[in-house]
């Protein structure tokens, strides 16, 4: 099984301009978030990438990704009808193949030589099924993420068979339906923002989009929950870091994380220390 296509959703509310922000990547060069994401995806062996954008956003994106030429495609999501609907918009681009899916407002910093997407794609290829990356997350973050419940697969570290998926569950529901043996109390497997999905997801999304009749937002979590009922669907637990650049100070935190894991680490650390020391000394002098 080859994963040669990727879908990146960038049409969400408040999400549309985030990929155009510029950061200094871990290699020390200035790049847009969009480019950092494209490079992350290409490293995993993907050949073509489709961005799901709101009409009108295509031009600045295309300009930013010009150097990747014909490997970048765009489809429109006319109305903000949910994450599931955004993925559904890319069905023609994907065709009948497995694909990698990311969101446009997250950046990832890997703790190992392999990137996060590389490891995900490798697992999906070896298991030949849909795989979502997840991370053990404290329950107070539940209002921000989708979460999965399931069982750890024996002798396969960090891989779980997903039994249920709930979008932004309350801890009340999470405790009843999403408890996973082996996790610390009050921790759940929340989505890390990367998935390799089999084309069967489009059948499910089609049903849900049809049922919603353009009036109800279609979540990806609901579709994944159904997918778990129909076929094998796994979760890969990541120990790396993801950064949501859409939240308050999210972009700054992501920048620091990139800098501290790259070649400018010492420089940035020194500047941070100087900032802190100057502030504290200044306060004392007052």
């Amino acid at each position, binding site marked *: 099984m080859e994963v040669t296509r990727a879908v990146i959703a960038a049409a969400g509310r408040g999400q549309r301009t985030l990929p155009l922000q510029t950061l200094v990547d871990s290699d020390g060069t200035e790049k847009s978030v969009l480019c950092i994401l494209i490079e992350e995806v290409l490293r995993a062996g993907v050949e073509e990438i489709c961005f799901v954008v709101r009409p009108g956003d295509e031009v600045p994106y295309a300009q930013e990704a010009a150097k990747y030429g014909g490997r970048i495609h765009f489809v429109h999501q006319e109305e903000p009808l949910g994450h599931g609907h955004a993925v559904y918009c890319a069905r023609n681009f994907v065709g009948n193949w497995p694909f990698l899916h990311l969101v446009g407002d997250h950046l990832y910093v890997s703790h190992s030589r392999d990137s996060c997407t590389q490891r995900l794609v490798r697992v999906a290829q070896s298991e030949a099924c849909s795989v979502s990356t997840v991370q053990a997350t*404290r*329950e*107070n*973050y*539940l*209002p921000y993420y989708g979460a999965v419940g399931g069982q750890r697969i024996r002798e396969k570290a960090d891989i779980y068979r997903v039994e249920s998926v709930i979008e*932004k569950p*309350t*801890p*009340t*529901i*999470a*405790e*009843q339906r999403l*408890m996973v043996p082996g996790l610390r*109390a*009050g921790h759940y497997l929340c989505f890390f923002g990367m998935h390799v999905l089999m084309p069967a997801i489009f059948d499910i999304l089609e049903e849900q989009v049809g049922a919603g009749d353009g009036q109800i937002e279609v979540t990806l979590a609901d579709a994944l929950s159904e997918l778990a009922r129909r076929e094998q669907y796994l979760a890969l637990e990541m120990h790396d870091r993801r950064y949501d650049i859409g939240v308050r100070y999210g972009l700054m935190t992501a920048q620091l994380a990139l800098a501290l894991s790259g070649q400018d680490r010492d420089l940035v650390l020194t500047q941070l220390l100087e900032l802190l020391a100057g502030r504290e000394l200044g306060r004392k002098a007052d």
Partner: protein
Amino acid sequence: MNLAGRLIEKLIMSHLIEIITASDPDIRNRSLDAFCRTASRELLLAECTALDEFRRQSDNLYERVRALFFLYAIHRFHLPLKEGMDQGGIIPFDGYMNLLNRRYQEAIEVFVAEQVGEGPNDSISSALAVAYRGLGFQTLADQVRRSVRSVCGNQWMFRTGHPADHPLRVRHELRRRQNDMFPILREVTPVRMDLTHSGWSDIFFLGMDFPEGARVINTSIDLSVRHNGRSTPPAPPVEAYFRVIDEPLLRLTSVDLGATAVVTSLSEIFDFARDYLGLLKAAVIASGIVPPGMEGAGQPLADLLAQLVGPGYGIEIVSRVNDIPKGSRLAVSTSLLASLIAVCMRATGQAENLTGKLSENERRLVAARAILGEWLGGSGGGWQDSGGVWPSMKLISGELSGPSDPEYGTSRGRLLPSHRIFTDDEVSAETRRQLQDSLVLVHGGMAQDVGPILEMVTEKYLLRSEAEWAGRQEAISILDEVVELLRQGDVQAIGNATDRNFHGPIQTIIPWTGNLYTDLLNQRVKAEFGDDFWGFWMLGGMAGGGMGFIFNPLRKEEAQDRLQHIMSETKQELERAVPFAMEPVVYDFSINELGTYAELSVGDAALMPPGYYALIVPSLLRMDMGRLPLFRRAELDRFGEACRNEPELGGMVQMLFDRLLPRELDDGGSVQDLDTLLNEFGFDRMQHEQIRADLRGGRIGLAKNRLPVNSQIEDVTPEDLYDATGGMAEVWHDLGTDAMANGAVAVVSLAGGAGSRWTKGAGVVKALNPFAKLGGVHRNFVEVHLAKSRRMGRKVGKTIPHVITTSYLTHDPIASYLAREDNYHYPGPLLLSPGRVVGLRMIPMVRDLRFAWEETAQQLLDEQAQKVVDGLHNALIGWARQMGEGNDYSDNLPMQCLHPVGHWYEIPNLMRNGVLARLLSVRPELQYLMVHNIDTLGVDVDPAILGSHIDRGSAWTSEVITRQIEDRGGGLARVDGHVRLIEGLALPREEIEFDLSYYNTNTYWISIDRLLELFGLTRAELDDEVLVATAVRKLATRMPTYITIKDVKKRWGHGQEDIYPVTQFEKLWGDMTALPEMDCSYVVVPRLRGQQLKEVAHLDGWLRDGSATYLESLCEWG
């Protein structure tokens, strides 16, 4: 002990442990009583040692608890009766303090060490019994608490300690305004009715112990109260409302209690007793809006609300109970709690659907959270109480715990049962209709405290007491029968079955579930409706409140009308003897097929219930409209429009007008009543003002009741008294008998007191309370005392004059009872001695409240209940300050503002009111009075004790008993070298009481002439009112005045009751023994003779330990 001895001991001991640990139900369910009846004292003591060792080592909760209850029962009921058991001993004070502080384990260590050191005796056994029982209940309560916390879906709430970590968000539908109005989510919930009486099998502990027997047929119903024979269509009685508001605070309102509060800090949420909104606060916590883990967090509530709803926003929660009185036995408060929790859970996304029904899983979680909420609020019923969350008729069954349950390995059963809703095949629509057409639901109006009953049941089931265990099996079989009858649709037979259940097993298990009131109602209904009355049906913990009567459907409407009359008439007859909280009511009801259900109102329709506006609008109108939040202004506009256009808001404008411009309250009547009563009952205004001045000046008060701390107070020696427990000399018996035969003795029963521990300040007459069935009939205290005097009079061939002292509180009721009952056919002279002195209660001094609550030893409660009580104490201290310390207490019914002034006055009253003079004119040969408390049930005119009194020539003989743990309040002591009775109030240190071996029974034998001499009077002078009054006043000044704090009930609303502490004073008769010129003797009498029945909760033990049988042996009924 040698090896063989230990082996033998071990073999013997294995018997009770074998019962506890057996897997075979036939052995496991064997009765402890059966074993103990034939066991010797030594064998029982050996069993106790083994059981104590066993319960320390066992890991299994129920083995431990059962061993604890076995130990309790052996010490309480069996050891004291065994041959060779010593009477009397010292109970170590530090053990007692451990008991008060709920450190039962430490208490047991102290008491066991005392038992080993001093040898077994009934005093130390009484202390051990209390400690083992306390530890048993504590262990069970801890387990329920652990189970509630560990229910999946509840655990996170105990981990969340900081507002920034709050993982819930209010659903977006509720945050979206329309026309400036926030939507309102309204939850309506039926209450539950128990179709068979579950035999209390749904008590958490019992369901967990014996899940197979824990079954209930539970029906969700809608209700309406009939007024003047009419009612509106039944509706779900409980409603809860939730909405977002644009202020960063929590606003809580209870429409039916007329209370509203604005909460701005986390600590206020956890203060349950601060106002009437404790239930709403418990729901806010148990629903996770303010998770229990945040108790004690110092962050602002606004921070938490910013997480939940958004910065600058808050939440409003409103509850309403539609006209259903408290104590309905329909689990209204649990249903309301569940309704509030459900609406809060929906609003925060913890239920899948914002509106409509809940899923099964969600209902279970609401039920678990309701248990949690009840625990937080310091209360708790059974698991069926949240049955209204489920729809229709269902069978609720206890479940064995499985590997995935938190209870697994700890208890046999799960905390939460399973619910199976009956299908139409099991109960057809026709049967449901017939049931509704036959059953008349009522509230009889009685005030009830079911707490003691639930403890009694738990104890009896865990002990597997024979009769009660058989009763339980029978109740279970009746449940099976009702299930089958429901299938057959035979409602008449169901009536027969519920009737048999009430009169059979239920009263076998707990005789106190029935009472004279319910007996009379049953008789009268039967007499009027004959075969058309198909059966009585008891609801809940005890009868007298919520009850059901099943009739031929053809006569249901007539029965509803007649029951209202029958109940009202019967209540009128009994209301001075039995505590009633309200006028009886009759309901209309229908089966609710939805369970708890929610609807969302948006835009102009998003209004709260009318009662809410009646409460809130007056204060809003007084504010500058410009300062009201936008949404409040919009709401007032909509409300105004609704008042103009919607017929159901018809009277609202007038009501608001009245509230804005309240008419002067016409309370002149009640003030006048109080003054009239004070004049009528001999109120001494000068003395009252003196007491007030002394109280405010700090010259008297609780702390000043005590003797100087350097007083030398010691236990008496055997020479200071004589012992009548082992029988008395024949010569005294003959001497006493002759005196009785010569008409030398009369009995004085002291019945002027309020009996506040018995009636809990309810203002009824303890002496007339039909407390138990004796000789097959409910009897009151007066009748029992007369029956004993009748018997003794007949035995000696001379009737015994009997005087009952009364007070303003008790005189008229006792007089009318005696008239109605024709003096219970008492053959001798029977006189009432009306009180001549009355006191007016006062608002307590804060220093006295603090002294009572903080400086004297108090029973610490369960952790959560104690928090509630501490909060209540703070609120009451605030109340006392607000009302004015030392002011007259007049904010209640006039009779509730008066107080009796202590039994010292009751004997002098005999002189002042002419009763003694009359008695002496009828019986000039009269020489002696036997004076006793109304609740000293086992006392009678014992010829031998009278003989010894005569023989010694004393002016006075006091009866005392050896002390047991519950005997608090002073005793016999040598005080600064003088042997006398001393009140507990007067002891400089509480621990001194525990060094005193003997407790005062308050039974006195008095030589009349010697007493008159003490007053400076003669028989001839008794006719001189002025002389007598002067003599009494003179001696009264030599008697200490004690300041006490008593609880008084204030009733309001639909059966609601508040309890306030009030200050009153009293003088006590036992202090006469402190007079140096009083020539006193003291006699130790058997416990069965001298013990007093002070609390309703002690009735069951009194029945079981042989006291009731002993009493019956003394009585001869008229």
